[in-house]
């Protein structure tokens, strides 16, 4: 896969360790200063004029959130210079964003978790579960959600990541090795462990658990398979689930 603009920038700055991804320094290198202030209307903003810019980040946000916001605004600075955008910085979401926001999100993901550093560390963990996700999130100072998306997108294992609120599925991401016919249910099935965590007093799964695939997929052939599921709560009304698909027939094309 080709080196992205964010990854090239990190290499130009000699970054060889996740701890060296100093976003304020990277911003300065690109002509932008980072400020922290209480923001009421949004997580972050960028105002640029000619070759200089000021990125203001909500001082009350968590560290991973601040880092994501800076990286996201740098994405705008690189790709949308000279444009005025109505921006809504959300946590890294793989779907449902406007085009410009997605471009900035992808740039942020590459800057925070460049593949040349992420892959070698991810490969040290043979199993995709939330323990692995936490370890990588800690190493790259990102949220668990952002690290989990990166892990799934890089095809660490044949897996899906699904986010649900009580209103239904918010988004999902599928590893390239998982055929597109596997599409997670919109509403959580009561048979899934995630259901108990989202709607009941269920605690986070400490390890992936075996569950019938029909709990997650409406497809006719789902009843033939079992998958592994691990769910954690990410917000009062939000759960994040890793689905591991290991049956060969599930991964075979139609």
């Amino acid at each position, binding site marked *: 896969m080709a080196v992205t603009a964010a990854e090239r920038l990190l290499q130009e700055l000699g970054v060889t360790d996740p701890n060296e991804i*100093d976003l304020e*320094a990277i911003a300065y290198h690109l002509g932008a200063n980072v400020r922290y202030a209480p923001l009421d*209307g949004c997580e972050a903003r960028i105002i640029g*004029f000619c070759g200089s810019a000021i990125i203001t980040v909500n001082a009350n946000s968590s560290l991973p959130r601040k880092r994501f916001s800076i990286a996201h605004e740098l994405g705008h600075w690189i790709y949308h210079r000279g444009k005025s955008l109505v*921006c809504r910085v959300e946590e890294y979401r793989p779907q449902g964003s406007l085009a410009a926001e997605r471009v900035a999100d992808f740039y942020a993901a590459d800057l925070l978790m460049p593949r040349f550093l992420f892959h070698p560390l991810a490969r040290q963990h043979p199993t995709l579960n939330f323990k692995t996700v936490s370890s990588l999130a800690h190493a790259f100072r990102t949220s668990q959600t952002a690290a989990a998306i990166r892990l799934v997108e890089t095809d660490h294992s044949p897996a899906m990541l699904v986010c649900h609120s009580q209103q239904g599925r918010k988004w999902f991401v599928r590893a390239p090795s998982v055929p597109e016919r596997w599409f997670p249910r919109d509403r959580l099935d009561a048979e899934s462990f995630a259901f108990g965590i989202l709607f009941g007093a269920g605690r986070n799964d400490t390890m992936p658990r075996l569950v019938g695939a029909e709990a997650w997929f409406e497809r006719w052939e789902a009843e033939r398979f079992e998958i592994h599921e691990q769910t954690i709560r990410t917000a009062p009304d939000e759960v994040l689930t890793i689905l591991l698909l290991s049956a060969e027939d599930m991964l075979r094309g139609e």
Partner: protein
Amino acid sequence: MIGKKTPLRDGLDRLVDALVEDILSTPDKDILAELKECGGDPARNAAEMRAFFERSIVAANKHRLAQARAGAARNRKRRVGGPVDIAQARQRLRAILDSAGGPQGLTLAARKESELSDSDIVSMLDDLYELGAFPPKDDEEEGEKEN
């Protein structure tokens, strides 16, 4: 080499030039053969040199990152603002955001003016002044007085 020119130094310079010229004019295969004759391993030598260059590049790039870190640290400062007429500030910012793209060369990714709090409005205007998108506040006020 930098130093005082002497007859001895001139002689050494000529010797270095001749040696370099000799190496550059020798075919690659002859150099490789010579290295092997001396017990050298061309592949290993090439790998060592490649690694040396890569280390040098990374070190130079890390120096760039260190400079950026120092620059970012210098630029950390807190802004102290004076009293502001919020209605006027909102009007001012709305005028900028509503005009097609604002001043030429302006980059902006932020919420709509109507969604911004008073303090967000003030800090956005401060950013615009600091970036030079407007004339300095004092000039502007004087211009208003003259009018």
